[in-house]
């Protein structure tokens, strides 16, 4: 058994490609567990960051600094009564959140966390991603319809129209990024996500910096379309409580409603990881070609350990400054345990990094390399997540017709222009 496991730990081919269903299943489980943890963490970070933007503290009561708040919310939603409106369509009402969830999670089979750390490396990676993200709109339309009342229906029609129109701009931005992959020496582009990142590695630049203004422009268009695609921040027409129409998920309650929220957060993470893969050089650490020296290699491999050490330090300071009143005793213990957990992970990562440095061929080296890939990828996605929260705190909401005008009359022409310009520049240069 151990060599079977070793064969896959060290393998340079994604389980999907190797055709090994068992190992692919384990990857799927790891990724979905990871995404769920990320969604829980995102929920906590969003509430706390939004609060501190607005000079308030955010959840502090449930667990130390509100750390257990997301879990409490999840439990509450599970225990809440699950009301199905009268004359609503039982089957469709039940299926709608599942479609949304399916669309949000299916994208993860394609996202590359590392050269071999992805569920499967489809050679139509990007196309699959675009297709599945358009399925999300179906879930919302059907949810709005099944709630059998005017305003969720209007809300659903609006948010679907928004998703469909921004999907066009998003698709064109993605195409211009894919075009860049084919303008290298070999002349054959690739749709597979791992191939795109490797193309960026070969060409030595992230696509955001390639053909200077074009890469950045395409990235900006994708970033804007991405927010509209997940109904977030300035484009959150659906949950606009001050407007007349309520969101498509007003009639949902309890667990069903939490499925929608899970789908929304998962879609956010999925879409931003696609942006990272396409423009910010997926799992590549910064300056992979310039700083080749083994010393640089070692310092960069220390980063994961250091970040966890930093988190552990923050949690430690939190425990120290916890007031000594008896009420806070449990919270202090809880935070202390959390801090020590983070510290031990940090220690483990540093150990692997050091071990990997000493004997290059050993498993530790491969392990620390894998961790490095995943770390850099997750770090970039985390930065995107913070952007989502930042937008939500600062921007007012677009009116629906302005939103559609921006989608069709501003984003679409620019993305077409960028696509044509990239093609021309590509043909001229290569």
């Amino acid at each position, binding site marked *: 058994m151990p060599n079977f496991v070793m064969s896959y730990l060290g393998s340079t081919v994604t389980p999907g490609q190797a055709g090994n269903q068992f190992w692919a299943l384990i990857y799927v489980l790891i990724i979905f567990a990871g995404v769920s943890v990320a969604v829980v963490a995102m929920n906590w970070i969003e509430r706390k960051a939004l609060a501190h933007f607005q000079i308030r503290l955010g959840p502090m009561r449930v667990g130390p600094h509100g750390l257990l708040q997301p879990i409490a919310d999840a439990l509450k939603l599970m225990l809440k009564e699950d009301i199905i409106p009268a004359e609503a369509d039982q089957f469709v009402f039940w299926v709608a959140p599942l479609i949304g969830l399916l669309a949000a999670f299916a994208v993860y089979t394609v996202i590359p966390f590392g050269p071999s750390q992805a569920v499967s490396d489809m050679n139509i990676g990007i196309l699959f991603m675009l297709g599945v993200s358009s399925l999300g709109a179906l879930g919302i339309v059907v949810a709005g319809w099944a709630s059998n*009342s005017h*305003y969720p229906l209007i809300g659903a029609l609006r948010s679907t129209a928004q998703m469909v129109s921004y999907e066009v701009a998003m698709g064109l931005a993605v195409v211009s990024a894919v075009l860049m992959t084919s303008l290298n020496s070999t002349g054959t582009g690739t749709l597979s996500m791992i191939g795109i990142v490797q193309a960026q590695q070969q060409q030595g630049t992230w696509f955001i910096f390639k053909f200077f203004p074009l890469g950045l422009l395409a990235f900006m268009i994708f970033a804007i379309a991405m927010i509209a695609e997940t109904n977030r921040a300035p484009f959150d027409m659906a949950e606009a409580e*001050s407007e007349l129409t309520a969101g498509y998920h007003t009639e949902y309650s309890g667990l069903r409603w939490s499925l929608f929220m899970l789908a929304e957060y998962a879609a956010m993470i999925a879409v931003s990881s696609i942006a990272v893969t396409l423009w910010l050089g997926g799992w590549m650490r910064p300056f992979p070609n310039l700083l080749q020296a083994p010393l640089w290699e070692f310092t960069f491999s220390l980063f994961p350990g250091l970040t966890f050490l930093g988190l552990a330090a923050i949690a430690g300071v939190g425990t120290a400054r916890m007031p000594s009143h008896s009420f806070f005793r449990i919270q202090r213990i809880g935070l202390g345990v959390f801090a020590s957990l983070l510290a031990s992970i940090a220690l483990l990562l540093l150990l692997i990094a050091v071990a990997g440095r000493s004997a290059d061929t050993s498993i530790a080296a491969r392990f620390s390399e894998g961790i490095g890939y995943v770390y850099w990828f997750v770090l970039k996605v985390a930065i995107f997540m913070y952007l989502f929260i930042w937008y939500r705190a600062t*921007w007012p*909401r677009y*009116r629906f017709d302005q939103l559609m005008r921006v989608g069709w009359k501003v984003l679409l022409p620019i993305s077409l222009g960028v696509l044509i310009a990239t093609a021309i520049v590509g043909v001229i240069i290569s």
Partner: protein
Amino acid sequence: MNAPAKDGTQDVSKPWQSEKPYLDSNELIINMGPQHPATHGVLRVILKLDGERVLGTECVIGYLHRGVEKIAENRTYAMFNPYVDRMDYVAAVSNGLGYCEAVEKLLNVEAPPRAKYIRVILTELNRIASHQLWLGTHALDIGAMTPLFYTFRDREEILKIFERYCGARLTAHAFRIGGCQYETYAGFEKDVKNFLTFVAPKIDEYEALLTTNRIWLERTKNVGVISAADAIALGVTGPVLRASGVKWDLRKAQPYAAYSDFDFEIPVGTRGDTYDRYLVRMAEMRQSLGIIEQAVNAIPEGPIMAKVPKVIKPPVGEIYHSIEAPKGELGYFIVSDGSTQPYRLRVRPPSFVNLQALDIMVRGLLVADVVAVIGTIDIVLGEVDR
């Protein structure tokens, strides 16, 4: 949000059963019900819609009517003073100032200079507080969540000063007929000065967040436009009138309570849209800071209460006295029959009059803009319904 009240009988139990499918919805009457989050209190607006565009509105008010004017006829002048604060509960101090000055005019008694200065300082502080509350809720209606918390944090400082001066934060029964009840507490000038230095950069913070914010511009520019002629015809006053380009401010036009001693400008807008009203109110906040600073530096010594008989029996007659409240011209028309209780007391609330302009401003806009326009007229239902 109650189900759409159609003029025809419509089976309310199944809202889904509207005869006209949504596709080619013609005349649709929607209720922005009394408990809608964006109607600043209990105002019901019946919107006549064609699809998304507003054809006409009809405001149903009276949900907060307490019959204040009728009560005034059975109260003595001094007893009625606290009622006045409950009308525009956001700018309670300026209500009190208006009432006291009206009665003083009836009694032709003059408040001593020190009382006048204290009154100016507190009223201007109240104007800033009212504008801050307006900005917070208005931005929230349009979707920006953060300004609400900034404005409420700063408004808290003002309410602390009120509390220390007269014990109440919101409905501060600060003034009495003939002057002020309380001498300023020990650190009053210091607190006000600290407040001035504290709030000046904060207003820049609001401006930084919203004034050049593209989406804010898009949601407020050319929305809810009212021309100067319409404004004057409707009797609209206050920032709404000034935003349409009419330079009319009672503090300058009919100076009262020591305003003639201070110099300050009147901010005026040009197009009369939501963005101009936003700019006018922000500039007004800065002007108020200037006034308070001049007042605090030059506050005279001396008595704070004029000689007013214990039982106030004004001579027979009637007077109308109006002041510049944060929302517009707040007027008191008192008819006295020589007894201790007014024969008739009529209040001209600015919000009630400004609300008439809603219909003109909103016609042809989209439903989402109705929310923004109600916010920019800055109405308080306590004052509208009295």
